[in-house]
């Protein structure tokens, strides 16, 4: 039965209670933890030891791609169809700057947002945690800590007791 579940979900009243419980869970040896909260909680990522996201790298690569695309496009267009306007330079970087800037931002911003969704595995139609009874309050005023079932230290009964001691308002075994 334990193998078939997604994890144990503990419900907490406020962010401080959640942070305290998360800290205790790390100390108790749980490694595969997740939390569901209505807004980002400062310090939670550090306690859960989440790796620093690399969205900024994607943004940088996107920006460079956009700039390169814009430059190449404008150089090529002026090479392929040279238009002499009173002897002014064909390859005028100052005149190209605006489109280069716009495309840098466009590609960079879109790349970051798409990377964020991709890495988060969204869009996604359903998820086991949506099967929990109180989970809809995770978008309102409750803060949930989840010990995932594939954690080495996970045991349905003992983990439930642990969450109870950590001050959970309700505890629920989420089926996978």
């Amino acid at each position: 039965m334990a193998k078939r579940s997604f994890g144990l979900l503990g419900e907490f009243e406020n962010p401080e209670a959640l942070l305290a419980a998360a800290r205790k869970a790390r100390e108790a040896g749980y490694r595969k933890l997740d939390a569901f909260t209505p807004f980002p909680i400062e310090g939670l990522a550090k306690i859960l030891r989440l790796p620093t996201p690399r969205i900024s790298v994607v943004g940088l690569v996107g920006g460079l791609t956009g700039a390169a695309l814009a430059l190449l496009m404008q150089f090529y267009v002026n090479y392929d169809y040279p238009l002499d306007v009173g002897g002014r330079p064909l390859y005028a970087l100052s005149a190209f700057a605006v489109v280069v800037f716009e495309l840098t931002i466009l590609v960079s911003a879109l790349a970051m947002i798409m990377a964020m969704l991709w890495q988060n595995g969204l869009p996604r139609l359903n998820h086991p945690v949506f099967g929990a009874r109180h989970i809809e309050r995770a978008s309102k005023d409750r803060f949930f800590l989840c010990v995932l079932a594939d954690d080495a230290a996970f045991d349905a009964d003992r983990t439930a007791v642990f969450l109870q001691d950590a001050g959970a308002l309700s505890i629920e075994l989420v089926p996978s």
Partner: protein
Amino acid sequence: MTDRIADILPPDQSLGRVSDQLTGIPLHFPARRRWWIAMIVASGLLLLLVISTTALFTRGVGIWGINIPVNWAFAIHNYVWWLGIGHAGTLISALLLLTGSEWRNSLNRFAETMTLFAVICAGIYPVLHLGRPWYLYWMFPYPATMGVWPQFRSPLEWDIWAVLTYLTVSLAFWYTGLIPDLAAARDRAKRRGWQIFFGITALGWRGSAPHWQRWSQAYRLTAGLAVPLVVSVHSEVSLLFAAGQIPGWHSTIFPPYFVLGAAFSGFAMVAIIAIALRSLFGLGNLVTDDHLDVLGKVLLACGLMTGYGYLFEVFDALYSGGAHEMQTLSDRLIGAYAWTYWGAIVFNFVPLQGLWWRTIRRSGWMLLLISISVVIGMWLERYMILVTSLYRDFVVSSWGAFTPTFWDWSTYLGTIGLFLVPFLLAIRFIPMISIFESEELLHEEQEARRG
């Protein structure tokens, strides 16, 4: 604006109540009657736009008052006006996010929504003005059988890239910020239709800790890109003018002057919408008098900076000593269209001075009237910049006049419908005040109060 104002939201309200209140607006819409009345008026205006565009496309741009020499009047003037209004949404949302000014949290969502639809209104104007709008695709670099490419050394070509980039990035930023709130609305929805609508649009958001972490990073970085984007887009718009040789346009002050004027008119529009929404939906607990106070201060600051632009424009002309610059200056001050110049000065800067007083900033009605005056003033300013420069340029043979026709006005009023209809739909269907950011701020304030 970096230091946060102590307790801008009344701290004696619970997180759950705020969430219920805000998701309740689309789910159990409170002001149906007033919404329908507004919607009927807005739809009427939109219908006017449809009729005006149909007339325009069948009969051509000759139905407008434009002619040589004033060939750029209402279409470009309203384009600049709408785009300027749009910019404040991005500035409120992105700039104030980065400076940590949490008071923005009650205003950013509808300000961004305002941006989206204002940019659409702006964006259709150059297309209508094309004369042969079906050749719009000539602006894009596609391998044409004619063997020609767009001219990338022209500000007119930069324009389409700037506006389309701005629209796309604004849309992406707006949607990214909306995802957690769509999830909140999904979780509160009781009826099947709403559950499906919000279930799909929320993309399966579940507020997981690593998701929030990536989301925050992506959101803040996009905000960081959006701020220079605003400055670049409106600077580029000003280059449409400044890169030409027409006296009164050919000036290096134009980019900052335009960007500040844009922020000025946009913040005025934000104040108008904030006051309207607050009274319509009883949101006094989230859009507080303190918010109006801060908005009033920002409006005053933007107005004074725009006023500085006016002074320097005059100084520029006098300092250049060029005969044609001086001629344009006198055309503005005492010429046939002097009413636009003085109208802009009066509407922009005279009622504005009321904002020095705290009681006026904190009174919804006064701030509303001042903001309406600013929006009218900035409209006149763009009229002035376009027409007073064009109607008399270098040689007497190219002097003329401009009088707007019925179709000029009907197209302009129609774009107001194009703005209002989707905006009213957005009010009806999505949370118009950011739920999770309001909760976050409220929690921080309660935390600080507990010590």
